[in-house]
């Protein structure tokens, strides 16, 4: 790809991000006129207290979470698809999000059954508790995976172990839900639907910092990832310590998934779909391009889904998980069909 086309493509993506950011601030389930939005953003207005609250406490935090969750999940998906050389790999494949779900289910069960309080009724303490338990569950799985990856020599074995962990955590979660109280199950279901509004304003800096560390680190893995495209044997012959690279990639993808799942719930699809979209947009396998391209595409998809989920006229906001799949799935099908057509034309 020529550097000019590269520049144009990235400029377009950036332009899309800016437009969607503006749209995300302008529109929401509560109608606020563009003029009021402008005034709230740039001037202090005592008459616009309600509007100010909605914009500063809801829309902007949601926007920030959507941006970082979208970028992070997309990069995690890209890393895992390249590592496993499997187009169906996504952040949920290693069982990390299942671990997070189990953490949440366990917390809700314990507090509900033994402490007798429905955590969902505790406001921000409840939300923070859910995030922390999700993080704990995800990290336990991640540590286990790292231990396993030093034992097995085949990447496919690691993939199978990850999938088994996912089933195991899923089964345990199911058991807990079976014995949980109705309110707790409700809270769990809501967490499972995913949301970009689960991070309170005070925690946003930590969330942003953690995801940024993951995103920046991923760029340093571009060369090992490019080498792995050729398969482990060629990669090793080109001087790559594939075992070490594998562990780094899993650690990084796992870290991103853990942080994002903890705060936003198990968001499906962005991690699976975005790398495909980025690859077909840029027609390249070079990770030095694909990593930033996936970040940008992930941000666009997340912002767009956030916008759709809170369209005016919809009571509250739709579950993000449903919206990402509703929008992402047709997109991926279109990409595949287009690829297929260009293949048949080429041959």
């Amino acid at each position, binding site marked *: 790809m020529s550097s000019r086309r590269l520049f144009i493509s990235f400029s377009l993506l950036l332009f899309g991000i800016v437009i969607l950011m503006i749209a995300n601030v302008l529109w929401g389930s509560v109608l606020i006129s563009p003029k009021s939005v402008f005034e709230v953003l740039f001037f202090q207005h005592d008459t616009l207290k309600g509007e100010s609250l909605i914009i500063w406490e809801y829309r902007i935090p949601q926007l920030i979470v959507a941006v970082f969750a979208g970028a992070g999940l997309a990069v995690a998906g890209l890393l895992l698809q390249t590592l496993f050389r499997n187009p169906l790999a996504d952040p949920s494949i290693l069982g990390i999000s299942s671990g997070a779900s189990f953490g949440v289910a366990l917390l809700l069960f314990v507090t509900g059954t033994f402490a007798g309080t429905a955590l969902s009724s505790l406001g921000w303490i409840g939300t923070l508790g859910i995030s922390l338990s999700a993080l704990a569950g995800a990290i336990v799985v991640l540590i286990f995976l790292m231990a396993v990856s030093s034992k097995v020599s085949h990447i496919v074995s690691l993939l199978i172990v990850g999938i088994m962990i996912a089933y195991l955590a899923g089964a345990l979660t199911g058991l807990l839900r079976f014995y949980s109280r109705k309110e707790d199950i409700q809270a769990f279901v809501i967490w499972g639907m995913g949301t970009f509004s689960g991070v309170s304003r005070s925690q946003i800096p930590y969330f942003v910092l953690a995801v940024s560390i993951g995103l920046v680190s991923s760029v340093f893995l*571009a060369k090992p990832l490019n*080498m792995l*495209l050729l*398969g482990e044997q060629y990669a090793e012959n*080109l001087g790559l310590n594939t075992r070490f690279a594998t562990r780094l990639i899993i650690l990084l993808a796992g870290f991103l998934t853990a942080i994002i799942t903890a705060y936003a719930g198990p968001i499906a699809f962005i991690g699976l779909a975005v790398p495909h979209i980025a690859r077909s947009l840029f027609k390249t396998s070079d990770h030095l391009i694909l990593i930033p391209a996936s970040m940008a595409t992930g941000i666009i998809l997340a912002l767009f889904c956030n916008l759709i989920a809170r369209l005016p006229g919809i009571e509250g906001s739709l579950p993000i998980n449903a919206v990402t799949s509703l929008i992402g799935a047709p997109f991926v099908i279109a990409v595949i069909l287009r690829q297929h057509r260009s293949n048949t034309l080429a041959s």
Partner: protein
Amino acid sequence: MTEMLKLKQLQIGYANQGKLKGSVSLTSPIEAVVNKGEMVALTGPNGAGKSTLFRTIAGLHRALGGFVEIDGKSLNTLSLPQMSKLLSVVFTDRIADAYLNVFDVVATGRYPYINQWMKMSRADRQIVHQSMEMTGIAQFASRLFRTLSDGEQQKVLIAKALAQQTPLIILDEPAAFLDYPSKLNLLKLLKQLCEETQKTILLSSHDLEMILRHVDKLWLMAPNLPLIAGSPIQLIENKTIEKYFGVAYEL
């Protein structure tokens, strides 16, 4: 003559979870040498351990005992990056990526020489182009790798090995999926590389007829027999080939 590759009492096989006890040794200890600029073919029935031997020499598989020396340096003392500048490989693994083009694949041969931002110098690019020209694939430079035929893909991977600028190249069954003219082409190309650029080439093949005509030396391997090296004519005349393959063989 310089010894490019030397195997000393090399034992190959599969260790039992890292322990020597209970491990499976595939052959008796191997003693063999490949001189600089030589083209050597390894052949023998299936299951003799040819691929394992190659993977062991390339440092991708741990030896059960003995030593591999490349260009006078022991494999145990070499790091992976150092190895990548001494020995390049062409294996039978398939590369299935959707968007890698021929230039990209050949350019990976320069990875040992460039930093993590993968910016190639003009000299690097020239080496990639030269490698593609030497193997006759320069006209495919911007074609997608996966759209090439097996023979063409094989040449791209050989170009990658050339771009890696290693004195020693190892090819595991490079002719396996090729038709007769492509096989002939490939062996002529490899022979030419040995003669013109002083590369040392070690390849494995089942195509006795083909390799007998092109290689300088033959290595024979068979289950329960020691690796034996010799000139093709010699090994036919003293019936060693018959012994190793278990069938009568005549030119």
